[in-house]
């Protein structure tokens, strides 16, 4: 065994802001249109065009800054990042360099049972490039500029992440947050949310950062996890073999599950950043910020803390329930209908409901069982009408569209037997039929007791209230 290594990861996340039009032109940002049909004169960089900033994009950046407790720079600067590429029409990308709109801030993540705060370096506004299409053109390259000028918020974290697992937890939390505050549709297949991972390793306990490699364009959580794991392993292998890490940009190949070098620092481009003279400094008005602040919903972090503090939920539950706004609002509705039963609601949302949704690949908003319907079902558990097992059966029927819970309970005769007279008769019959087990229990075998409860439940076709059965049985056999 070699020495222990620590993995250090920082993420740069490109979040496509869900504005109707582009960041510097009036062209539509809708995905999937025929090539170059959503590229205006500005997006094509025709001679004589000028950029005009879309304030909807700025508003979304401000929402983000407020949501992560960052500093909003009252005066930020757009800069030109100069490089030649066929799908970059102006020969430069308008971005923010020295003074970004959002500085600092933090995101709290939940990894298993522990929570962790990940610091953000900055978030800046910039425009996306177009796409080069290398297929279907018989050795030539096609250019689609529909995406050129789409607004992006690049969110840069500090190197605070210590494993692929933490990086994924951070990316998922961020993904949930940007959707929560309605600044990004989060569609990863369409490239609306993609990450670059800066990965380095260092001996456990070392305070100095190792040389990093940047893995570009990871557009799924699974690829993010695998790419970091592969890259960290690769770097550790190099170092353990006495080698040296070369700073470089790498690409992850999901088919071969490996990262490959794209370019090294030596041939890194000189982007010749300078302030864009076509755009004035972006000045934020404090009244505007206050207005946006007032329009923000309760944020996931605040809600998570409230769930733990006021509802008594474990922090794990609170994190899962606030991972996305739809799940959380489902849970909110449920718990409002069943005050005092937060844990029961949480168990069902995280358990039965999530399992069914996942199995059928449905979003919670498309759940056939609404929160109001589920609330009725859970009330029947809470008031002792249904056992947990019977409730699952009812839930299945509800899922299949067989009506509301009370109808199903009545139609199937599933009502739990809680009448003590009826239960006593049942228990007495079980004792009479199983003398050997009764003796075993009396001799100290707890297992025999469970057997007897099982028999009673079976005899009732599962309808007996199990807690009451145990109570009666124990009284009778111990007596």
């Amino acid at each position, binding site marked *: 065994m070699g020495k222990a290594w620590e993995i250090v990861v920082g993420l740069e996340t490109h979040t496509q802001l869900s504005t109707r039009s582009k960041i510097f032109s009036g062209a539509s940002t809708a995905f999937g249109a025929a090539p170059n049909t959503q590229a205006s004169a500005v997006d094509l960089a*025709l*001679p004589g*065009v000028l950029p005009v900033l879309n304030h909807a994009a700025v508003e979304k950046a401000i929402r983000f800054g407020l949501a992560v407790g960052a500093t909003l720079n009252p005066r930020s600067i757009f800069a030109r990042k100069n490089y030649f590429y066929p799908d970059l029409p102006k020969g430069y990308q308008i971005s923010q360099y020295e003074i970004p709109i959002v500085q600092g801030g933090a995101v709290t993540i939940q990894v298993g049972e522990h929570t962790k705060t990940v610091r953000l370096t900055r978030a800046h506004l910039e425009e996306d490039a177009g796409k080069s299409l290398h297929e279907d053109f018989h050795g030539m390259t096609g250019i689609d500029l529909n995406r050129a000028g789409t607004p992006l918020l690049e969110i840069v974290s500090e190197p605070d992440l210590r494993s692929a697992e933490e990086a994924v937890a951070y990316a998922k939390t961020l993904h949930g947050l940007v959707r929560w505050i309605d600044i990004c549709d989060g569609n990863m297949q369409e490239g609306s949310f993609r990450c670059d991972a800066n990965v380095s390793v260092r001996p456990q306990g070392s305070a100095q950062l190792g040389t990093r490699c940047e893995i570009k364009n990871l557009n799924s959580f699974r690829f993010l996890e695998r790419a970091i794991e592969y890259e960290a392993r690769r770097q550790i292998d190099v170092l353990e073999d006495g080698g040296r890490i070369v700073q470089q940009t790498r690409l992850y190949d999901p088919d071969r599950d490996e990262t490959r070098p794209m370019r090294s620092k030596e041939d890194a481009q000189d982007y*010749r*950043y*300078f302030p864009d003279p076509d755009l004035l400094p972006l000045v934020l008005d404090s009244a505007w910020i206050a207005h946006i602040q007032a329009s923000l919903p309760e944020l996931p972090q605040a809600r998570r803390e409230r769930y733990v503090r006021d509802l008594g939920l474990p922090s794990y539950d609170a994190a899962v329930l606030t991972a996305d706004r739809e799940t959380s609002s489902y849970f909110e509705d449920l718990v409002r209908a069943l005050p005092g039963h937060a844990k029961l609601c949480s168990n069902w949302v995280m358990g039965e409901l999530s399992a069914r949704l996942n199995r059928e690949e449905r979003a919670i908003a498309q759940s056939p069982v609404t929160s109001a319907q589920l609330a009725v079902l859970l009330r029947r558990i809470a008031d002792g009408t249904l056992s947990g097992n019977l409730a699952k059966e009812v839930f299945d029927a509800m899922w299949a569209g067989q009506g509301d819970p009370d109808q199903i309970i009545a139609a199937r005769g599933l009502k739990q037997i809680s009448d003590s007279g009826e239960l006593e008769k049942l228990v007495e019959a079980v004792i009479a039929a199983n003398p050997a087990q009764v003796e075993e229990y009396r001799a100290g075998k707890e297992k025999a007791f469970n057997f007897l409860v099982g028999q009673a439940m079976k005899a009732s076709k599962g309808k007996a209230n199990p807690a009451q059965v145990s109570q009666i049985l124990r009284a009778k056999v111990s007596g």
Partner: protein
Amino acid sequence: MHLESLAGLGRALAARQVSAVELARLYLARVERHRDLNAFLDVRPEVTLAQAQQADQRIARGEAGPLTGVPVAHKDIFVTRDFSSTAASRMLQGYMSPFDATVVERLAAAGMVSLGKLNCDEFAMGSSNENSYFGNVLNPWDKTAVPGGSSGGSAAAVAARLTPAATGTDTGGSIREPAAFSGVTGIKPTYGRASRWGMIAFASSLDQAGILTGSAQDAALVFNAMLGFDPKDSTSLECAPEDFTRRLAVSLDGLRIGVPKEFFGTGLMADVEQPIRAALRELQQLGARLVDVSLPNARLGIPVYYVIASAECSSNLSRFDGVRYGHRAEQYDDLIDMMSRSRAEGFGAEVRRRILVGTYVLSHGYYDAYYLKAQQVRALIAKDFQQAFSACDVIAGPVAPSVAFDLGEKAADPVQMYLSDLYTIPGSLAGLPSMSIPCGFGAKGRPVGLQLVADHLQEARLLGVAHRFQLATDWHQRVPPGFQ
């Protein structure tokens, strides 16, 4: 008719003494007759006449403004839907824009009839119009002389009375210097007054559209239609509309004219200084008081300008890569090679030189020493002007150190060429309104221009001073021999 002022043409049209179509034909014929000047790059009589017909219909309906039916021509830096837009570059030979520049659109909306597109230095880079891919322009006063640049076609066309007005663009003197060399009136407004939408960018923080005409009064009339806020240009100033003719009748009594000593040092040719001094005396006669002022950092204008303008141009011209439009090399190995060759072939020597300089000064490790330093000095130069304007209302001096030089004389020496913008660059760096008006003749009978600079947004005052001078003198009415 072609010797009439623009205001006079407007009156004649309104009085139906002449129709817009007749006027268009008259000027088109003059353009045709003087093709040897090479002032025009694209002329399309059918387009011009169609616009003139529309102007006549407007006049007939009684909807005419003071400019309706008056001809104008546009520097080929403005993109136009109806004429090709080339920036005088091989890169854009034959390029047709799908939209009109705001300046073009506004003058068309006022009813002005476009005669076509005017030659200039490639991408407005030059001081002699010798950098045009489509050949140099001749100075109507002396066909062995340059007309100045970069708006050389505009200046020559107005001087030769091929058009009563021509748009120009000024980045470091590109309206004022050719106006001086060709003996016409040329004005650039405060940075941000004219929309840059549709102006093929050279140096975004300096580029300003302006106008070359026969007189300050004519320029004021055109400014009324041309200037104003444009939401399509983020650097456009949001000012209330104003009447730029409102100060034409204001006397010069008590006006303080600042004379910067730095504009009269060595380097200023005696044949230029003499008419300038005479013009200053004339202004005194008209009631103005001369005040000594100083612009101590103005001497740094040229290096500062060539850092900033080159930096911005290196980035602005990156879009010309052969991918979407413009010149594409015939032979290439791959994408990057295609771009390199297309740019090497499409751009002329001066444009390539400035792209290289600009790329260098923005490079990692040089940015602070060049670009950042230049911006700091630029702020100092602007401060000098503010200081000067605390002691005077208008600054006056020469436009250029010499009269128009001979064709080819400085073409091989870029630094000598750059020096012809010595006195115009400081005002550009400060974003100030500034103009050139004819004030006499120097060596070889070549015209001399008086430069007037005012504080931000003081165009009306500037035009007023120039107009009082032009009421008292007739330099602006002199017509080059052979063009009467």
